[in-house]
């Protein structure tokens, strides 16, 4: 029997609960909307003695990730949280964390990058960091945010990986949206993540090591190739940890969350909370006899190319929804579209792909937008032609 506690929590509080159960050695963090509640709630756990964590209230996000690196290099289990410009401010150190192979776990509550200053949801922040060498998981709901954070600790610390993990959830929509969240029993969560034995540690005074050393042109390339090697092994670890997690939680976690894809001729690919809206539209259209399905990738890094190709193998037309723009990319496309296209091209699949940019700066996405997408897909499947590669949902044009 699976023992759980059910609480009404928003995504930020769900994330804080996960951190409480992980009980990391160090949390170094700086507040930024809409992540603030995560760290604020966690610091209350620290103050109340509910965790043993050394909490460092640092002066900026750059300092936060720097302190996390120091603590992780010293062999500690380390977590933090940020969003938007906070993630942007820690940009150089985010790369350093993954390059130093430190299994830090960070919540990123997706929020638009400035300028203009916007505190609402879009994916420009985490997408901007997609090349930083971190594993990236997207959470549709507060429940997923909680579940992903717990699993992230085990994923990051796996000896084949030793790669930090970013767990995303949509700012405000998920972060501030209260839902029913089931928590694992504290003891179960603790046992699931186990104890962390660092491969190398600054505190190993019997056998001192140097961290953050210098590479000349004769070694940098090899060290970078190692990171790709780790990421190439990550999907298998993510799947295995997901299976183990199902055993303790009753909830299933894999690479892609597929809905109505079995005989689908049309498909919508979308990350995070908008998948909820998309799923409702797909359900409605299926009842009307439209052979449409939904694919919601949970994992963006490493990119699930093989899994997507398998899911899309029978599909004639696929719409990829992006909550960010890769400025200057082909016709102003978004990053998810670009990577899906790469996967389709490499696999030689004949599916036609079309991009929809939506939701920037918290712009709402409604069922009628998804119905428009489905209608466009039907046209593309019928004619075999894409007349407009990159489109916008909810933009005043």
């Amino acid at each position, binding site marked *: 029997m699976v023992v759980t506690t059910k609480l009404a929590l928003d995504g930020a509080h769900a994330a804080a609960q996960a951190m409480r159960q992980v009980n990391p050695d160090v949390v170094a963090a700086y507040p930024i909307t809409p992540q603030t509640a995560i760290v604020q709630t966690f610091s209350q756990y620290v103050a109340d003695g509910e965790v043993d964590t050394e909490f460092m209230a640092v002066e900026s996000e750059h300092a936060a990730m720097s302190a996390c690196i120091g603590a992780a290099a010293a062999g500690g289990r380390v977590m933090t949280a940020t969003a938007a410009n906070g993630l942007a401010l820690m940009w150089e150190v985010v790369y350093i964390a993954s*390059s*130093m*192979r*430190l299994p830090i776990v960070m919540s990123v509550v997706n929020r638009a990058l400035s300028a203009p200053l916007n505190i609402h949801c879009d994916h420009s922040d985490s997408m901007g960091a997609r090349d930083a060498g971190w594993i990236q998981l997207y959470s549709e709901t507060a429940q997923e945010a909680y579940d992903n954070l717990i699993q992230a600790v085990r994923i990051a610390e796996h000896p084949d990986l*030793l790669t930090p993990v970013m767990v995303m959830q949509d700012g405000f929509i998920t972060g501030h949206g209260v839902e029913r969240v089931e928590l694992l029993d504290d003891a179960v969560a603790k046992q699931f993540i186990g104890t962390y034995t660092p*491969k*190398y540690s600054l505190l190993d005074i019997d*056998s*001192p*090591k*140097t*961290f*953050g*050393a210098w*590479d000349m042109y*004769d*070694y940098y*390339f*090899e*060290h970078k*190739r*190692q990171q790709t*090697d*780790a990421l190439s092994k990550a999907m298998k670890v993510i799947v295995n940890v997901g299976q183990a997690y199902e055993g303790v939680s009753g909830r299933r976690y894999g690479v892609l969350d597929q809905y109505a894809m079995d005989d689908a001729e049309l498909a919508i690919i979308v990350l995070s909370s908008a998948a909820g809206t998309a799923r409702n539209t797909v359900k409605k259209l299926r009842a009307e006899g439209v052979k449409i399905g939904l694919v919601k990738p949970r994992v963006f890094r490493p990119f699930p190319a093989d899994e997507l190709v398998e899911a899309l193998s029978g599909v004639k037309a696929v719409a990829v929804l992006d909550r960010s723009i890769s400025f200057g990319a082909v016709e102003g496309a978004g990053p998810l579209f670009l990577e899906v296209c790469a996967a389709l091209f490499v696999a030689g699949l004949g599916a036609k792909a079309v991009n929809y940019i939506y939701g920037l700066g918290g712009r709402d996405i409604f069922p009628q937008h998804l119905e428009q997408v489905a209608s466009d897909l039907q046209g593309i499947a019928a004619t075999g032609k894409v007349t407009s590669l990159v489109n916008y949902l909810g933009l005043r044009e």
Partner: protein
Amino acid sequence: MPEDKATWKEATIGGVVLEPGSSAEYKTGTWRTLRPVHDMENCTHCMMCWIFCPDSSIIVKDGRWVAFDYDHCKGCGICASVCPAKTKAHEVTGKEGKVIQMVSEGD
């Protein structure tokens, strides 16, 4: 030699250096274009060269100048610059001047 170096599979992950004090193995002395030479007879063992050397490349023992560490001396010339002692005919160069003088590395 490039062939001696570790492949990506062999290299330590994260660039972690496993042995302490390993910088000493890196022979920065190969970067020199000038090298310092010493006149022991006229050296007053004032230790000024040792204090000022930015690369810890003057070897001293029991309050006396012993040798240059040519494995790590980059030939910056600071020791020659701060040396206060004089010689009429330097042991190595034969020239009048300081106890420490700089000569071309090629010589």
